């Protein structure tokens, strides 16, 4: 299977990755090769086979709805790129 440039552009946008024209062309070739490898999977008959996500087929455990974590705002914000008065700063979103 091969991807066209429009596919690559769409995927880059969905994945929030800025890419130059040149990078997209390189990605097109490499991704097409990888999808060539993956294509082998399509011919397998999996009728009636249940998908597997955990080897022990566990369902997600539930916990009681109580507060367990302590507030660590200062520790967490000390490693943020930009904060002000306890808030994370990002470019203006709403005019």
């Amino acid at each position: 299977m091969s991807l066209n440039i429009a596919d690559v552009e769409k995927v880059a946008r969905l994945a929030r990755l800025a890419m130059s024209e040149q990078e997209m062309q390189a990605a097109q070739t490499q991704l097409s090769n990888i999808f060539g490898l993956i294509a082998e999977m399509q011919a397998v008959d999996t009728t009636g086979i249940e998908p597997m996500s955990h080897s022990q087929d566990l369902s997600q455990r539930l916990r009681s709805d109580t507060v367990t974590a302590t507030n660590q705002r200062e520790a967490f914000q000390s490693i943020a790129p930009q904060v002000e008065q306890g808030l994370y700063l990002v470019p203006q979103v709403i005019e």
Partner: protein
Amino acid sequence: MRRGGFPLPPSLFPLPLKEMINTSLTQMGAALRAKQISSVELTQSYLDRIAAHNPQLNAFITVNPEVSLAQAREADVRLASGTAEALTGIPFAQKDIFCAKGWLTTCGSKMLHNFVSPYDAHVISQFNNAGAINLGKTNMDEFAMGSSNETSYFGSVKNPWDTSRVPGGSSGGTASAIAARLCAAATGTDTGGSIRQPAALCGISGLKPTYGVVSRYGMIAFASSLDQAGPMARSAEDLALMMNVMSGFDERDSTSLQRETEDYARDLNKPLNGLRIGLPKEFFATGLDNDVALAVQAAIDEYKKLGATVVDISLPNSKLSVPVYYVLAPAEASSNLSRFDGVRYGYRAPEYTDLADMYEKSRAQGFGEEVKRRIMIGTYVLSHGYYDAYYLQAQKIRRLIAQDFTEAYKHCDVIMGPTSPSTAFKLGEKGDDPVQMYLSDIYTIAVNLAGLPGMSIPCGFGANNMPVGLQIIGNYFEEARMLNVAHQYQLATDWHTLTPNAL
């Protein structure tokens, strides 16, 4: 076919400090508790070795001697007070994928080049509680995506047996550090072979436990349904001691299994009489280098001498494991790595116009090529209209692959084969073709897909005098038996005791 390296003398106590680095964790712990050596002395001797050899090997991203020595002083207090445990005072290294409070934790990425973790991963807490010393954070492929350690933002790691060759990946820094005796032992993680393949390429021992046995809390996520942490060391006996510390239920990991505590060293000394070894024909077919095949065959012959019998088995769907893996792992990675947005921690691009531009530029500049490639594969296979054809189909074939193993274990106790189709390749050799690199994990990936435990132990040398690894795959929760199988081999052979000549 022994070449290179030299056998080490049998250990007798008290040993001079420079020989202490070649003793087992059991002997090291005993020497510490008997006050033949202090943790500060031992830690300093490893820090000296790191200072001497790391500039060449690049196995560590971060060392912090003051912090390590402070931990060693605390361990010495504990050793003096008689409350020491098996690993108290022993210096370990930690793969840089584990968050460690106050330590730079990069995951091999520019995205986290400035991330000082505000908390400890479960695995790190377990080592801290045991009184172990953290010598530093080991280099790795960026976000554990790679099989050669060449995708690290912090530069390639070198294989101590030949510094023009790769150590394997993604736990390549850990494997290189252990082979060069820059730490007593260390941690790794394995999503598609990242403990076993570098262990094989660097001539050390490594164990990927059954999925769910070691908590993933604080271990930076790559592909959550496959990621599993495990120990890497010189011998199976050392791995067993580390498993006793690393394993156990943790409510902070939703996939952690609630099981009785076990002593992974309990079966080490059992004889192997009657052990049935399954040899999958698919693991000895085209694609396996002859030198690797010869060393693995010699190891199997050794097992026959130890009382084992051999059974031919088949894992017919294992050939699909690479394509299945390259759908599932990137899909989960694209979701896990969406958290890196330049807002709360990590890298933010210096210039941007608006919020979307900030996300796109921060991610484009913060992630390396291989990581971006996998995010894009994952984004594509999860995008509208493709989910059933890719992700769901891959999850169904995953079950077929797991069922092959269940069927095989009706006829054998453990499965053996090569860990990797070749010995360590040259840096840069697999260059620009990701598919070639992906195929180097052909024998390890099926184990992750099935969630089974797998290990690699050194079993000789191949062409160019590079180490070969024997892969041992066990049934679910059979780690103690696998460690027994590996330990008995290591009592009968000395491959695991050999060290690179240059060191």
